């Protein structure tokens, strides 16, 4: 009797243990089935001496969402979550573009997928591919999102998140989660062209070639670039250490360049991606932006409206059209030619050997601080209403009919300051 009871007990224990083990096996199998699978795609191609690289940015991924989108993202991630806050799309917004001496372009993209059906995830990773192709004209197109055409998410009251990746081939694959990270390596001498209209952060190494950017909501941190052409809207940090030449059109942006040869502002109209639907809103090529420049050879302002421009040192400055902008120069070495309106100009330190300042302006405040050792002639239009000018500090040199010419300094000099500014406040000291 005792033996039989023990036998039953041991049988029950064995069955219980088997059940527990089976349960763990099932849970393990489930966890394997729902595990995230990652794959890093790497492609490297040789390029010629003339290469132009066109790239989008990671956040350029096409998105089609129908239903509830909840977001709990960090600044460096472009992410979309479903109706219960489950993270569905997670794109690293940082696009690191390293430059090297090799004549090679390399793309590294890490994709992480999670799907209900493991086979779907494996199939998606198998179907994804990098498309680096060396075009006949030396042009290489880079898609940071490989061959993904669209990330689609649908949910509803009685429907949980239904996420699908649509590939460029038209194939749709069901997933739970997609993560993307891209890194590029390009030759230093390459010309780079970047486009994006969603928030992204671009970190670019030293580039001896040219950089062309059309960006909305972007941050760009660069070291050095040969020629920079930028069309920017609401880009709050576009920062470079040195640029040979730059041509910038922007609205509501912040641009900082520490050193440059020639910078041009507003010479070209903003690209379509940087415009609003109604173009009448903004006619100026540069508006409501803040520019901070370190050391420049020449700054040319072609079309500016209500910008704030601060320069540490500049040799030559030409302002063709500016309305309601503010210009603050710490040190001006040679010349300033300005035909503007309502534009306040402040020169903190005018070099004693400057050549020419010629300002046509109205309704503005102009302040010039000159070197005590400098010698120059100051010409003021007689019919202008000018406040703040202390005539007693100058000796009248000539009466030229429409202008009074004053002389500063004891030596003869070719340096001239000509001011035609009606309804202005003008101080020179």
């Amino acid at each position, binding site marked *: 009797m005792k033996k039989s009871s023990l036998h039953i007990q041991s049988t029950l224990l064995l069955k219980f243990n088997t059940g527990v083990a089976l349960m763990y096996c099932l849970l393990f199998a489930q966890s394997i089935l729902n595990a995230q699978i990652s794959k890093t795609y790497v492609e490297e191609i040789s390029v010629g001496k003339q290469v132009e690289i066109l790239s989008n940015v990671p956040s350029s991924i096409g*998105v089609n*969402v129908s239903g509830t*989108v*909840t*977001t709990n*993202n*960090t*600044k460096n991630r*472009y992410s*979309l*979550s479903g109706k219960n806050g489950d993270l569905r799309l997670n794109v690293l917004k940082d696009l690191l573009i390293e430059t090297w001496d090799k004549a090679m372009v390399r793309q590294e993209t890490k994709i992480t997928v999670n799907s209900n059906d493991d086979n779907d995830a494996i199939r998606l990773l198998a179907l994804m591919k990098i498309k680096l192709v060396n075009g006949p004209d030396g042009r290489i197109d880079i898609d940071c999102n490989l061959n993904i055409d669209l990330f689609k998410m649908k949910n509803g*009251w009685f429907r949980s998140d239904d996420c699908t990746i649509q590939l460029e081939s038209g194939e749709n694959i069901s997933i739970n989660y997609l993560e993307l990270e891209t890194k590029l390596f390009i030759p230093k001498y390459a010309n780079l062209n970047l486009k994006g209209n*969603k*928030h992204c952060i671009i970190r670019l190494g030293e580039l001896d070639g040219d950089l062309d950017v059309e960006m909305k*909501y972007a941050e760009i941190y660069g070291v050095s670039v040969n020629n920079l052409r930028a069309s920017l809207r*609401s880009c*709050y940090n576009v920062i470079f250490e040195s640029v040979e030449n730059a041509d910038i059109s922007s*609205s*509501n942006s912040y641009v900082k360049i520490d050193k440059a040869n020639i910078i041009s502002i507003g010479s070209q109209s903003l690209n379509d991606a940087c415009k*609003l*639907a*109604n173009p*009448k*809103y*903004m*006619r*100026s090529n540069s*508006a*409501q932006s803040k520019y901070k420049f370190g050391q420049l050879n020449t700054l040319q302002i072609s079309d500016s*409206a*209500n910008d704030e421009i601060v320069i540490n040192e500049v040799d030559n400055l030409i302002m063709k059209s500016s*309305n*309601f902008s503010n210009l603050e120069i710490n040190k001006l070495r040679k010349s300033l030619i300005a035909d503007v*309106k*309502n534009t306040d100009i402040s020169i903190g330190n005018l070099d004693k050997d400057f050549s020419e300042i010629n300002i046509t302006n109205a*309704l503005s405040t102009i302040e010039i601080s000159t070197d005590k050792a400098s010698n120059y002639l100051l010409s003021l239009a007689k019919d202008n*209403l000018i406040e703040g000018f202390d005539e007693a500090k100058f000796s009248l040199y000539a009466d030229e009919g429409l202008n009074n010419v004053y002389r500063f300094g004891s030596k003869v000099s070719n340096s001239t300051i000509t001011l035609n500014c*009606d*309804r202005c406040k003008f101080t020179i000291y």
Partner: protein
Amino acid sequence: MNNFEKYLQDNKDKLQSDSVDEKVWLMIENEMLKSKNRRSKRFLRITFIVIFMSLLGCLIYVLQDQDEGLNEQKILAEYDLTKYNFEEKVNTKKQQLVSATVPETKFEDFQILLQQLEFMDGQFQDYIRYIEQNGYQEFIGDQILNFYKSKIELLDKIKSEIDKINYYEKIKPSYTEYVTIEI
């Protein structure tokens, strides 16, 4: 056999009940069926009303949600920006400019600043579209913070430029009509 048993045997025929007419049974059955049907109908009616009311409730909720959509207040609250009272500051500054006038000759130049103000309104619509498409992305909060600073700066600029124009107009009149800037 006792007397009682004998009595039962003798009166067996009398004690047995007459068979009931089939029509009566049918009537009873019909009556029972009708009652059952009435109960089913009542149940179905109540179920239908409950489902209808639920669907109506859902529809009203969805329509209300659609009507509300995304607006400036909702977005400011989402990014915890209500503490800055941006809307109030903007409205106060706009209010100060409602009746502001400038000489007609200066009005066209002034349009540049007014268009920038319109551009900024359009910009906010762009933020709304972005949020509708991509949810509340964190950087939009930073953008909106800068957006309002710029908008307030712009309104201050408009005010100071009007003051400047009118100050010089008093000293050196252009003898043109004044026009309202219409913000």
